[in-house]
């Protein structure tokens, strides 16, 4: 029993988001540090792969980067529609960040999206961007009017939706990553030899990347709805 208790304790310990250091009396959590690392890495990798771009006779690396960026841009522009196309770079950035964050477990670190602060930040950013896009596309009047569409009776539902959308985005991402993380900790608690590999492939890679797709796809859909 003592062994099982220790096992449970380790998992509980793993699931917690520790405070790495305190800055002026405020604890900085692991997820913030991980986010900082991920943003730095993503930006540096982006800088490196896009260095020395040439207009004429591009290298193979440049062609690969270009086709990747075009593919990503095309996908989000397609979902966002003609009017929301300008928000595609935001979606691409978020997709890059969340993709790395979701598979962060592979590198032996806790994924920042396991912390609700991180997913809440993403969801808040998205909903603010959705409202901003709505205001920008239709003006303040049109934006306010959009709450009583298609009929005035829908007003409470629309206002409720303003909170449901980010909460569902946040909780979906958070729950999926946390679930994957818990399953992975359970498996890794049993053995660290070969057995975790297929689990990691499914829970970290497949599920993590599907969640990236779903998160950015839903955000894009909200924006395209708002600008229509």
């Amino acid at each position, binding site marked *: 029993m003592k062994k099982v208790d220790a096992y449970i304790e380790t998992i509980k310990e793993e699931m917690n988001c520790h405070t790495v250091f305190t800055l002026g009396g405020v604890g900085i959590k692991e997820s913030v540090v991980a986010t900082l690392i991920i943003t730095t890495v993503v930006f540096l990798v982006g800088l490196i792969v896009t260095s020395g771009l040439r207009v004429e006779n591009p290298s193979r690396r440049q062609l690969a980067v270009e086709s990747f960026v075009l593919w990503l841009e095309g996908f989000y522009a397609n979902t966002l529609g003609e009017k929301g196309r300008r928000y595609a770079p935001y979606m691409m950035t978020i997709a890059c960040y969340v993709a790395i964050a979701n598979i962060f477990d592979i590198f032996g670190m806790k994924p920042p999206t396991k912390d609700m602060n991180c997913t809440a930040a993403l969801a808040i950013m998205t909903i603010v961007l959705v409202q901003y896009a709505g205001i920008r596309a239709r003006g303040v009047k049109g934006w306010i009017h959009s709450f009583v569409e298609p009929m005035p009776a829908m007003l409470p539902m629309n206002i409720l939706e303003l909170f449901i959308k980010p909460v569902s985005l946040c*909780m979906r991402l*958070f729950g999926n990553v*946390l679930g994957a993380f818990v399953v992975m900790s359970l498996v890794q608690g049993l053995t660290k030899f070969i057995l975790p590999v297929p689990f990691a492939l499914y829970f970290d890679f497949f599920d993590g990347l599907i969640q990236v797709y779903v998160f950015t796809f839903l955000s894009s859909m909200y924006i395209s709805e708002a600008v229509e």
Partner: protein
Amino acid sequence: MLTAIGAAIAVFSGIGAGVSIANATGKAVESIARQPEAAGEIRSTMLIGAALSEATAVYGFVIGVLIILFLG
């Protein structure tokens, strides 16, 4: 004991997710069999649907974890 029962009930939400994902996959297989040329589009749409329905199971899981952590 009661917290464990509560958590178990919360995880019942997985039933809905399982049934709905099975349903979605079955329908997707049917449509791919009927229209093999649209397989790529059907697959991606099915994945979104599956991920969305899986969210309900995830909500149940989150609630279960919350119950265990805060009430247990």
